């Protein structure tokens, strides 16, 4: 069980905040930019040749002696794509980032499935679950997530390889700690594929505020590169500055692609994590 009952109750009161509805293949519970038959009235418009006679509002013709078409709100499904970083660095941290990232992916999937959105879960390191709808998919998503283990090396290029069935909201959950390559091009590639990118960074507390000091040999868990350092307060200050600059770069990449960037800690509970999502406008209270 990835999420507890209390957490599921919390998530049941939330909804994903799509910036604008996307047209889906099937009718769903999301408002569509297209008009369609549905119980919910939207507007009138004058009749033009070629319109469906069945949509003419005859009572209006009786009052106005003009042919008016009655329009209804179309409700279609939305697409949520959750991309989880399964690189080796996600296993780092105390508590590990991997647990927090996986729970976050499960939570977002649950919110999407509960709203009858089409949800697709994939990994940066490869592997994905076919798109699904409805609460029935929750167990499949969780099973899939529990089957994943962080290992190996991933990078921004992996984001290009993820298959996107439909336009929608793409949430990338990662630590985004990759030395080689920039995140800006693949994030811009999401926008070109009509995806609204959300870059959700999860870091461990010791990555936010390093407590190591002295003469150390640091080893990158993904690349096995090493660096001998004498860590001083000055060097830690430099670390903080570099982290802040990295986050600014990620935020710029997301904004230029019409998306958002937010971060949370691996030590945060689900409520605090969702609160970060609320502040960033990724989720909202239904």
């Amino acid at each position: 069980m990835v999420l507890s009952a209390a957490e599921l109750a919390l998530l049941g009161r939330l909804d994903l905040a799509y910036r604008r509805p996307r047209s889906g293949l099937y009718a769903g519970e999301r408002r569509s930019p297209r008009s369609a038959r549905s119980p919910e009235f939207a507007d009138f418009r004058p009749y033009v040749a070629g319109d469906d006679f069945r949509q003419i509002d005859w009572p209006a013709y009786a009052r106005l002696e003009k042919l008016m078409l009655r329009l209804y709100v179309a409700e279609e499904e939305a697409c949520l794509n959750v991309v989880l970083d399964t690189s080796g660095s996600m296993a780092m941290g105390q508590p590990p980032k991997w647990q927090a990232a996986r729970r976050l992916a499960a939570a977002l999937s649950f919110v999407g499935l509960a709203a009858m959105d089409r949800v697709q879960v994939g990994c940066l390191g490869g592997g994905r679950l076919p798109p699904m709808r409805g609460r029935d998919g929750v167990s499949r998503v969780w099973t899939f997530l529990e089957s994943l283990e962080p290992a190996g090396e991933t990078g921004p290029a992996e984001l290009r390889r993820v298959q996107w069935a439909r336009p929608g909201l793409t949430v990338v959950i990662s630590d985004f700690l990759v030395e080689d390559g920039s995140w800006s091009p693949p994030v811009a590639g999401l926008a070109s594929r009509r995806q609204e990118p959300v870059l959700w960074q999860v870091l461990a507390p010791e990555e936010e505020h390093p407590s190591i000091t002295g003469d150390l040999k640091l080893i990158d868990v993904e690349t096995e590169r090493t660096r001998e350092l004498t860590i001083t307060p000055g060097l830690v200050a430099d670390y903080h500055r570099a982290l802040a600059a990295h986050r600014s770069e990620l935020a710029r990449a997301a904004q230029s692609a019409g998306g958002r960037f937010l971060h949370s800690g691996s030590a945060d509970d689900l409520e605090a994590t969702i609160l970060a999502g609320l502040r960033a406008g990724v989720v909202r209270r239904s």
Partner: protein
Amino acid sequence: MQFLLPAAGLALLTVPAIVLLYFLKVRRPEVRVSTLMFWRRFVADRQANAPWQRLRPSLLLLLQLLGAIVLGIGLMRPGLVGAAGINATTVVMIDASPSMAATDVSPSRFGAAVDRARSLAGQMQPGQQMAVILLSDHAQLLAAPTGDASLIRSALDRARLSGTPGDFAEGISLANSILTGRPGGSIILFSDGHSRAPSSPARVVAPLTYQSIGTTGENAAIETMARSASGSVFLRVANYGRNTRDIKIEMRADGRLTDVLPMKLEGNTTTDLTWSRLPASTQVLEAKLTPGDAFALDDRAWLVIAEPPRHNILLVTAENGFLEKALKLRPGVEVTTVKPADYKPGRYDLVVFDGFVPTGKLPEPALLVNPPAGQGPVPLGAAIDPGSVLPGDVRDPLLSHVSLRELHVQSAAAVKPPAGWRTVISAAAGPLMLIKEDEPRDALLTFDLHHSDLPLQAAFPILVQNLLDYLLPGGFENQVFAPSQAVTLIPEPGAKWADVTGPDGHTTRLTPPAGSQAFPPFTASDQPGVYSVRQQLSSGQRQSRFVVQLQDPSISRIAPGAEPFLQPLDKPPGTLPRGTLEIWPFLVAAGVVLLVIEWLVYLINPTRSWIRRGIRGTGA
């Protein structure tokens, strides 16, 4: 260059040891992290604890190697072979004659001599000893034989120039007494050759090395400055050098420049001039030679113009024109002459009795000339033939500028100086002139002036003036004294103390010791210039002045003199060991500086690129 302790070269093994330590690698704990992207490359220099790494260029390594090499060489005690070496016991004699104040060598001849002695002290080897003798008015043993260089240096710090030429004979005698019974001794004399030479070649018990100090004899001086009765000022200027000099004499009246007298002085000549532009009411006149030269002590002269105090002198004599005229030569003196039969005690500053002594208590002070036998404060005996007159002590102020060489006395009274009296002039058979040293002061001439040729000689008026300086209250006023000469201040009646303020503003208070009315001699007269004296009397205060300046041509001739003439040694001296000037202190200092720089480089934040290149590693 030679190394006195070559075995200490083993210390240079620290050089490969340091390099070896740099080959060793620091064993650093391994920490697995998500990324290295936020960690800037920085490696501080640390102790190594794991074997072998690639040697990386490091400024710290360079500084440590340099420091180790310099210190290692310093430990080997390198030394430069010198001319004069240190023997088992070395007696260093330093001439403190006034001419050693010349600045033709830096900082002065005396300073250079002290520096050389200090350098010799630093060359002492274990088992060697050194003593220091200062040749001043009397030879002073500044440091007894010791192997402790710090004691020698401390003694040298106390060395001061003297106002009179150093006594070489006393110095040699002292050195001989030190070296007697000490084999392998030697004497080193630092001098410019102006110490007082002994009357005969000195005998030394050890080889003497004369190190001449001084490079030039070029010196001009104001030899004399005096004021005539007409009010004009007489100046005698001398050029003791070989070269012709264009000089100017600045005349300053009470500190204000009044006149400048240009003159051209040929080498080894003197020039007299008279100056009559003395402003009225001038108190102190100063003459100064410009430009200055290597010997500044004789470049200035002062004249106190202020009216001397009035003194009344009573001369009781049947007939003595010589004495009366000599007494009247002194400015400000009122001489009253009476016959012995007319003598009545009165208020006089001095009473001169010539061939007569009154009954009862003598007036004070008194000068007795040829008193009748059995009368007076000093019991006189029968008349005797005194024989030839002995040369006097040139340092006695009473005989200043008095030549006794041509003096002849036909007869004098036999006398034995009682306690408290001192013989100033003596002949082969007995004293000719005595003075009472304590207050009240008296003086006694044991012969009739008419039975000698003294009144016919130039020395007579000078001797009388010297006696008046000694006997009259305030006799020192407006007078000129040689530097470092003890000045005897004759107190005014009832004087409680006297404050003497020198040219540098330093004030010395003189107070008569208990049971005496005389001031102790003023000895802090080493600076040329005008000294002011303030005496505290019961009726108020009395202000007066005297002058200290060098007016001795023998001192002003500063050309380095020849080596002193010595008797040959009883035993051949052998070869003086060659000494060495050790340079290890400089190397140690350089090594310490290098290590301090290394420490600073280690401590400072490596912001400068060249430092950062030096101390950071190449990264993993």
